[in-house]
């Protein structure tokens, strides 16, 4: 009986701990960050103090892990904490979520088969606005909201 009570208490306490949630939380960046990729393929964001390697991203997008050289990366974070990343010449916008010492791909959103010519992001809570010339789309962590315009 005692063992049974102890087990129930342990389950209750551990359940309570794992369900602890601080909300609401807001992660959005007011403006996108445009960063030059360094010679080793890293981008470093000083204001938000984080950095990551882009080689795998370029491998995925261009099938060339060294294609990052001389490129800028545009990124922005939405209010839910997802990172939206793209660059000039990319066909896709990549949506990442933070994971343990990494960024994990959530969605890969195809925007233009011919590649984006001059893309930029704007924060338009709850959406991320993507503009490329006349093209404009509103993005969520799931992809394009309501189709492109």
């Amino acid at each position, binding site marked *: 009986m005692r063992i049974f009570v102890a087990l129930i208490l342990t389950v209750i306490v551990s359940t309570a701990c794992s369900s602890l949630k601080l909300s609401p939380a807001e992660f959005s960046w007011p403006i*996108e960050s445009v960063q030059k990729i360094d010679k080793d393929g890293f981008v470093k964001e000083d204001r938000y103090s984080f950095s990551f390697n882009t080689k795998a991203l370029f491998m995925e997008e261009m099938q060339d892990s060294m294609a990052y050289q001389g490129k800028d990366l545009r990124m922005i974070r939405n209010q839910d904490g997802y990172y939206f990343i793209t660059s000039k010449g990319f066909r896709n916008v990549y949506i990442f979520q933070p994971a343990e010492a990494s960024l994990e791909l959530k969605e890969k959103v195809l925007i233009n088969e011919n590649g984006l010519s001059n893309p930029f992001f*704007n924060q338009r809570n709850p*959406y991320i606005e993507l503009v490329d010339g006349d093209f404009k789309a509103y993005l969520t962590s799931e992809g394009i909201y309501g189709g492109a315009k």
Partner: protein
Amino acid sequence: MKKYIFIINVIVALIASNLVAQSDYEIVQNFKNRYQQFEQQIKNAVTLEELNSLTGEIERFKNEFSTYKDLLDKSLYPDNFEKSFDKLGNSLVLRRTDFTQIETLQTEVITLRSEVDELNKKNAELLNQIQLLEVQRKKDAETIARLEKLVNELRTSLKKRDELVYAIIDSLSPKLSGDVSALTQKEKEQIIAETEKKNVLYIVKKSLRDNTRFLEVTTLKPEDLKDVKEQQSNFVSMWQKVGPKLVDVYASRKDKAQELKDIDALFTSWKTGIQREAWESIREDFALNNINLQSFYNGNEFTEIITAFINDEIKSYGVKSKEESQRVYSVFVDSVWYKTISNEWMPYLLENNMLTTQQKEIIEKKIAEWKEVISPKDLTLIYVGAGVLIVLIVAFFLLRKKNGTKGVQNTN
């Protein structure tokens, strides 16, 4: 209700962004660039009018970007929109203070200029009087005393004039404090105009010439020369603050660029003048005692001439009268070398690397050699010994004779 407000906000945002598709990032970057330009313009402003016109431009800039205040508040971390403009405002106020100080300095400079002119006149008169007295220096004690008084008066006056000149040079410093190569042609012209107005190049040249002339017409002691050296090094460090920058500012004006080169040459001539003055004063010390040496202007020449003089004296010992040789030795060694050169000049010469310890030892060895010739040690001892012996013998015979006389008297 909240849901409706949220939807309305989204719709408004969508409509607004549909009107103009502009990058927020570009807006912020544009703001930051313009902001930096204003900061630079405030820093580079060369007149109060320029600064005042910036005030209006900054106000227009603020109005232009006030539409994006929310975006900028979030993006200008750690500042925000208002804080950024407060900072610009503070920079303007600070820079205005610089100009107020410059204006005050300019007024002071005008006063300084007239004082410098007066002192220049006075110094010219003093220099002439000293030169006249130097010619008849050996005449009497009264002339020497008058001369010393005049030299002191001139030294004080030159120092005072140089301090005024420093103040005038210093008044140029604020405008030349930054990177001169970054100045626009207009800014350079303004600095040139100010330099011309203050007649800076002329007064610097005049000062340097007077200081060199002071060395030429006076005979100074080591302690005086130490003062002059210090004065020279102060002048050099003051000029170095503005001189090289003025060279850049005047790069397009060949005549003035030459004038700046002349100033450099005058500094060098003053520096060499100080060394020359030391050697001439030493020679003068010998001349005052009727020992006329050839001119020497460095340690090697000094050592060579002194040793050559002693060698001549040694060679002529026995040719001319011994009394004369001893007199020359006594004047050279006792009255000049040990009394003045060794005591007063030697520390200065060694300290300023004008003479090496080896050269000093060579001369001293030569003097010892000379002494050997004039009054040899062993002969002196022999003379003294012989003298004592003679005295003892004479005393012995005298005592003996006296005792003998007493014995005879007693017998009688």
